[in-house]
C-alpha cells in the first residue's frame, strides 16, 4: 500500500475551543504511521502558530508548543495562507515554526491531492 496523503486544516484560534489541541493530537498520531502528512493553517488557525504567549493567567494548558515538535516527528509540510497572514498583520518572524506561505491556488491544489481531510 503506497503512502496516503492525509491533510489537516486548522481554521480556529487557540484556547477558545479544543479544536487546535485535538487537531495537533491527531497530527502527532498520523505522524507515526509513515504517511504523507500535510498541515494547512488558514483564517484564525494562523493564531495557533504565534511564537509568543503564555496561558498561565487563563488557566488553560498551552498545547501550542506541540507544534514545535512536528519537525522532530518528520512532519515538514506546513503551509500557511499568505493572504490570511497579511490580513491579520502577522509576519513569518512572529511564527513559532517555519511554515511556508502559499496562495489560494496552492491550497486548492493541496486539498485536491489529499486522500483524507481533517478539519480543526
Amino acid at each position, binding site marked *: 500500500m503506497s503512502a496516503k496523503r492525509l491533510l489537516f486544516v486548522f481554521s480556529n484560534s487557540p*484556547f*477558545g*475551543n*479544543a479544536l487546535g489541541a485535538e487537531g495537533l493530537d491527531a497530527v502527532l498520531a498520523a505522524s507515526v504511521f509513515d504517511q504523507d502528512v500535510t498541515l494547512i493553517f488558514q483564517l484564525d488557525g494562523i493564531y495557533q502558530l504565534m511564537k509568543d504567549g503564555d496561558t498561565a*493567567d*487563563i*488557566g*488553560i*494548558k498551552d498545547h501550542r508548543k506541540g507544534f514545535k515538535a512536528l519537525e522532530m516527528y518528520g512532519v515538514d509540510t506546513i503551509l500557511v495562507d499568505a493572504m490570511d497572514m497579511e490580513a491579520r498583520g502577522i509576519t513569518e518572524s512572529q511564527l513559532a515554526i517555519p511554515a511556508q506561505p502559499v496562495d489560494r491556488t496552492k491550497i486548492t491544489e493541496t486539498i485536491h491531492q489529499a486522500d483524507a481531510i481533517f478539519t480543526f
Partner: protein
Amino acid sequence: MIYSIVVYGAPHSSQAPYSAYQFIQAALSRGHSIYRIFFYHDGATNGSSLVVSPQDDDLLPKAWHELKQQHEIDFVVCIGAGIKRGVINEQEAARYERTQHSLNDRFELSGLGQLVDASLKSDRVITFGAR
C-alpha cells in the same frame, strides 16, 4: 453587588468555564458576592465527577472545589441540560435505570427556575457563552 454567573461551555471543550472562574475570583476580590453559578447547555459537564484531566494539567476541577469550600456560592447544574449530557446523580440514575451516576457532589441538579431566581436576586447576570 450581587452577581450570578451562567456558564455554557464544558471544561476542555470551551474556554467559558475557565473565564467564568477568573471573572468570579476578580469579582470576589473587588468585594462582590456571587449568589449562584448556573451551568447550562454544554456547561452542565462541569458538574461531572468523571471528567479526567490527563497529567492533572487542568486546574479547573480543583479550582471549583476550592471556590465552593471558601465561599457560599450555589453551584447549580441545569437538570434538563445535565441528563441530556450524561450528568446525573444517584436519584436520576435510579429513575432512568442507570447503574452508574456522575454528578460531583459539590454541584446540585436543579431546574431552570434557579436561573430565573438568580436573575431576580442578583444585580448582574454574566453569561460565559459557548456554541
